[in-house]
């Protein structure tokens, strides 16, 4: 009995819906609808047209500016075995830890040090050293160390006669150990006090490279 009543009620409601819709439409005069329809159409087109373009195709950038690797090669004066310090972080700022290696220096020896910078995100690796040399006036390397008796002096200069540090002279004295930090600054003040002698305190500028090696002198 109750079921019948509910069914009847449902039927009435279902009949009412089209009636209600027809009534609403009747109240909206056809003439008005003519004006509304094109607008509604524009509206729908604008929605659907922006759904079409759903491709996501990011371009992997050509990271030609990145420096991943620094190689400091020390050649003893008068011949002998070259010494290599290398710092390599092949994924840039990414999570993989850098690889750091440093050969042992000989005591009481004079070396010619030369720096090479690489971008190993590229294949084959890009050599950035020339870029730094070309912009020598706005770049300078600094060599800070805690090794007793180690002397590092600039052996190159930019167009204005100020040092860059791509080429250096390294003199060791007694057998000892310590750390060597090589820093590359750009847009620094090369004329500030002590900067030409390799003192970073007044240099300012932005750091591009700052790597530290554990060095043994034997």
């Amino acid at each position, binding site marked *: 009995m109750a079921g019948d009543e509910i069914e009847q009620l449902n039927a009435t409601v279902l009949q009412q819906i089209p009636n209600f819709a027809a009534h609403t439409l009747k*109240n*909206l005069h056809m003439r*008005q609808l003519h*004006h*509304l329809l094109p*607008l*509604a159409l*524009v*509206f729908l087109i*604008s*929605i659907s047209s*922006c*759904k079409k*373009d*759903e491709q*996501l*195709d*990011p*371009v*992997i*950038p*050509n*990271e*030609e*500016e990145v*420096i*991943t*690797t*620094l190689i400091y090669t020390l050649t003893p004066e008068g011949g002998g075995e070259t010494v290599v310090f290398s*710092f390599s*972080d*092949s*994924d*840039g*700022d*990414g*999570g*993989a*830890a*850098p690889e750091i290696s440093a050969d042992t220096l000989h005591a009481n020896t004079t070396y010619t040090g030369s720096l090479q910078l690489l971008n190993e*995100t590229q294949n084959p690796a890009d050599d950035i050293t020339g*870029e*730094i040399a*070309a*912009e020598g006036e706005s770049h300078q390397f600094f060599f800070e160390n805690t090794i007793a008796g180690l002397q590092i002096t600039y052996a190159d200069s930019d167009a204005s006669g100020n040092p860059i540090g791509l080429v250096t002279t390294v003199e060791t004295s007694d057998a000892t150990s310590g750390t060597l930090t090589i*820093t590359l*600054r*750009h*847009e620094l003040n090369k004329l500030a006090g002590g900067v030409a002698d390799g003192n970073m305190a007044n240099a*300012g*500028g*932005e*750091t*591009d*490279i*700052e*790597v530290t090696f554990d060095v043994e002198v034997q």
Partner: protein
Amino acid sequence: MWKFNKSGPLFFAFIITTFFASAQHCQWKVSGVVKDESTGQPMEFANVYLREMQTGDITDSLGHFSISSVCSGNYHLSVSHIGCEPIEIFLPVSGDTTITVRLDHHSQLLNEVTITREAGKTTTQENQSLSTQRITEQADKNLGNLLENISGVSTIRHGSGISKPVVHGLYGNRLTILNNGIAQSGQQWGTDHAPEIDPLSANRITVVKGAGVLEYPGNSLGSVILIEPGKIPRDPHLHGNARYFYESNGRGNGINLKLQQHAKLLAWRITGTLKKSGDKRTPDYFLRNTGNEEAHLAVQLEKPIRDNWSADLYFSTFNARFGVLRGSHTGNLTDLEEALQREIPFYTEDHFSYSIDAPHQQVNHHLLKAHTQYRITDQQWIDLTYAGQYNRRKEFDVRRNNRSEFPALSLEQFTHFAEGRYENNFAANWKLKTGFQFQQTQNTNIPETGILPLIPDYISTEYGAFLTLTKSVHRATFEFGGRYDIEDRRVAAISTTIPRKVIRYHKQYQTGGALAGASYAIVKNWELTYNIGLAARNPEVNELYSNGLHQGVSGIEEGDPELDSEFSVKQTLSLKGNISEKLLIQALVYHQQIADYIYLQPQDEIRLTIRGAFPVFRYEQTDARITGMDLSANWQISPRFSINAMYSYLHGHDRENDIPLVYMPANNLFVALNYQLPKFGKFQNVEIQLNNRYVFKQNNLLPEQDFLTPPEGYHLAGLKLSAERQWSKFRLQLFTRAANLFNIRYRDYLNRQRYFADEPGINIISGINLSF
């Protein structure tokens, strides 16, 4: 011959009218009363001016004015009062004419103190506005800095030119900004990305300090900022205004021109702004590379198609270049530590310059909105809206080998928004609003940078629906409603591992929001309002996927792709009212709990890179609580003297770790003394204001939460002079302001450049606004 016959009667009629007009000796009287729109009280000392007659009157203590000997014809009646939005009314006169003019008084302080409220108040949420007059007097300011005039609003800044509004401690993606009803869509995730909106295109800017936003899509966790150009006034003649300002600090210049006409076929308005300024100066040195250049345009068209059907179109374009302090750009942690030690930033020059070099930002934002409204009856109507936005952002850094001319960040974003909305004022004082919304955002990195992008490419598609009901019973208003959103987000990121490859993510979010509110007029002139709102915010792409070095703060930021949506419960309780129209008070307390609040947490890890070692920060989630209070008061001591005061208190707490929340605004107190003269010689509405803002030190922070302890509190004094005068057909508004009057040295906790430099010193700004 027939030609003469046809024009004859017309010619004759013309003679007759002229004759009659002169015979009448222009005998009509235009009179009326000026009332306060919100309180309904008559307003004394309002200036009333019949422009074509070049004559006027000042209202008496009952708000009455009267202008006699007015001829028949069409006139413009302008009505102004100190602290009010001046209005101009198109007035055809063909006999004695009486009108009632309602002025919007105290709009900044007590926006909707409609104690004797008309039916149909649409929201119970608290809001405070800035009128055109206040915007004009501060034409030199960007949107963020302008909004600091409202209690509870602060700004996160990146130098003096780039600022983001913060309402009740939330900003960026947690705060929705509506430009002419359209949610601003840009790169809002960056703390150094200012909203791309010209405040001079608005005739009113409102901050809704709400508990939840139901009517708009987006991620607001309570508050909304509305930038409204307003409807074009129904005046058939061409009107407009021209604004110009000069500021001494930064030698900034700005012009703004607005023209509008409600012509028979089409109502139109066009607004354009040009601004340029150079290096700002602290009391001791120039802030190198802090200039900016801006060019904005907005076009508004309104077309009544028939009595019950109208359509409008809005287009705006925002184009700017912002310099970033050269000395704030550091390479690694060693550089940052060195910069923190310095009195004067690196690269400071001893001369002024307009030039903008790297680092700088170049931003373009275009908006096109088409809207139509169809009134089914007077009580119910349908709105259809489409809006398209295009955002282009390029950020330039100091780079090697002439690469500084290529942006280091280059992003393009398209947003399409479509909405169908239905409103019905059914039954006695019941108001229903419901709508369906669609929004698609496509964000693309332009590969010209040669740098791994900071945030990935993505396409986000959102569908949302809402329904709200408002009911007014004679002393109370109730509001409740809900909203539901689905977001589908496809992301394509580039790996930070070698070899680089594309990593794809596909995520769907479903969120809901709800709001319930009630306001009740306890006694005459006092209203108590309570709101509770639930809202959600999906994690933003930078929080999920960013991975890399953030140069500005010398840290590596890592996103977490597994972050969940934030969920907020906010309650607000406000009391507003006045004591015999002399002392107006508005007090608001709020309490917000945000579950899964996303923030940057410093990690124990120090990551070694070729540039040195960097601390690692990771986006994490916690349970946060923000409590606060905003107080505003205005005391009219005498007809000449008044005092304004605003106080904002805020306390942010990380409940899970029992530590403070970072980047929460410091408490602040603003007091202004005003002296007002309705008439002084040929000048009207003369106002002198002496003000002081005290920003407290942010003590609610642990030393390990920042590189530096927050700066000391500071007092910032200001002075303002403004006056108006009628000059034949033009109305002139003149102002001079002095900011940081005593040229003090200070730094602000919410300025990201506080690590490097002081804030600007004294700045004197003079300007003129010519209305016709």
